[in-house]
């Protein structure tokens, strides 16, 4: 399989499989840390997501008469990423729905790996966000005392049924006043800022894998240093988000949060390093990559500040994905001495 990417891949002798495997390895510490934070529920959530993603891919391979494509690790990555962006209390049957939507709707219908327009994990997340809006906005505290012995009550909801109310359970397991809102929602609807150290260390309420900004950054750096991740995308995305947040903060410091909060809260870090960088759904030419990354960062901040939702990374990246082919086409690399030939090639 030939990967049409910039030259370093060729020089390093990388294949799709080895890159994908390294992404899986880079995601493992994040997944393990979330299991430490949320216990059994996070573990089975990850397992369900990965198994259903692999099974869906295999099933469609079978239906379309292809040989198995499980060996390229990409379905595994989608499974892990999907679990990382879901709330820890998400019922397993809904996780399975999200995984089927991610693989079926987000990837296979487009023709499989490399053909998909949108990041499959985010397609799955967007689908369940629209289908089960209340379940996906139910948050639980981390470090629950019994997390390695018992499930969060909603995890084992019978298929097709409404998850039980866990307000009482949440009160019982959380030490201090747990509000059941993410840091972004707290800022947006109650105007309270979460302490930066909570965000960095992963104490704050969040999706399974959006917890420790520091850990995500380290894992992303590993990939970037090995040349398996386009460093321009996280830099452009975080840079533009910080710049816009800083401008708003200067304009009205009482209302708009400081830039560190925008950077560390929610899914910005995970999105910038592991979602927006998906090779199949991001642009190729350097200029297009910059525009793509900066656009996602700006849209994220705009949705967070002015949209109806408290978090905007998912829709911002999907929006960027949709624009990626257009960006590539309108911002091509000029090949030295062959200005006209470009048209023929495309």
């Amino acid at each position: 399989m030939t990967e049409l990417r910039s030259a370093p891949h060729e020089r390093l002798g990388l294949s799709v499989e080895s890159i994908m495997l390294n992404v899986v390895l880079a995601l493992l510490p994040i997944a393990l840390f979330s299991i430490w934070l949320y216990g059994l529920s996070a573990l089975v959530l990850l397992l369900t997501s990965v198994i259903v993603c692999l099974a869906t891919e295999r099933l469609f391979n079978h239906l379309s008469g292809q040989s198995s494509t499980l060996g390229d690790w990409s379905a595994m990555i989608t499974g892990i990423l999907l679990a990382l962006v879901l709330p820890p209390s998400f019922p397993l049957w809904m996780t399975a729905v999200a995984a089927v939507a991610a693989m079926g709707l987000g990837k296979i219908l487009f023709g499989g790996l490399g053909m998909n327009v949108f990041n499959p994990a985010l397609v799955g997340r967007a689908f369940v966000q629209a289908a089960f809006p209340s379940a996906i906005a139910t948050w639980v505290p981390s470090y629950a005392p019994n997390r390695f012995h018992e499930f969060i009550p909603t995890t084992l909801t019978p298929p097709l049924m409404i998850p039980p109310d866990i307000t009482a359970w949440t009160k019982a397991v959380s030490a201090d006043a747990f509000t059941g809102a993410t840091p972004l929602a707290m800022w947006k609807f109650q105007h309270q800022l979460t302490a930066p150290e909570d965000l960095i260390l992963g104490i704050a309420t969040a999706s399974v894998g959006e917890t420790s900004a520091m850990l995500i950054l380290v894992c992303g750096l590993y990939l970037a240093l090995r040349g398996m991740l386009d460093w321009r995308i996280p830099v452009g995305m975080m840079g533009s988000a910080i710049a816009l947040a800083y401008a708003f903060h200067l304009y009205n410091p009482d209302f708009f949060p400081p830039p560190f909060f925008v950077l560390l809260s929610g899914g910005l870090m995970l999105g910038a390093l592991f979602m927006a960088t998906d090779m199949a759904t991001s642009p190729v030419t350097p200029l297009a990559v910059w525009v793509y990354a900066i656009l996602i960062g700006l849209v994220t901040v705009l949705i967070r500040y002015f949209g109806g939702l408290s978090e905007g990374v998912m829709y911002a990246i999907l929006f960027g994905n949709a624009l990626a082919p257009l960006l590539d086409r309108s911002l091509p690399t000029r090949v030295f001495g062959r200005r006209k030939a470009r048209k023929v090639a495309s």
Partner: protein
Amino acid sequence: MKPGEHPLTAFENFMEGIWKQNPVFVMVLGMCPTLAVTVSAINALGMGVATTFVLVFSCLLVSAIRNWVPKEVRIATYIVIIASFVTVVDYAIQALSLDLYEALGAFIQLIVVNCIILGRAEAHASKHPPLTAVVNALGMGIGFTIGLFALGSVREIFGAGSLFGIALFGPSFQPWIVMLLPPGGFFVLGAWLLLFAGWKQRKEAKDGA
């Protein structure tokens, strides 16, 4: 029909809209009501029956006057005829059930611009005698109703856990909200089209072998 083909029997003529030329699954016509009103099985049936009524009577009238209407003004007359029958249906539904009328909303009036009806009037009824035209229109209408029902029932089952308002999974069913929203219409339509295309491909492969 194209010249050179043998004439259809009455049964083939009737089945054309239900199967070979199904307005929803094959011609993909009239998507506005197809996607908008199919949030429940009963809405889908109501819309289908209303459209069938307009389709049959418009085609009957268009066919009956086809030799008197000069071609320069034919589209204008078709539109007037279709709009009249839509108005009749509009009043009739209000008289029968206000609940259904409110559920279908503006989409009753929008039958006027449903491309199936003008399409059949122009492509079929204006070239065939009344009986043939009515049989064909009836088949088309039934095919359209089947298409709407296929969408409406799936969307109601997932979106509300019921069919014709009868709960299927008990009170603690978790509705899939997305199925009731416009994207759900696209998803379900896409799934049906996929199913039909796959089925057709398999059948052709079998016929070829």
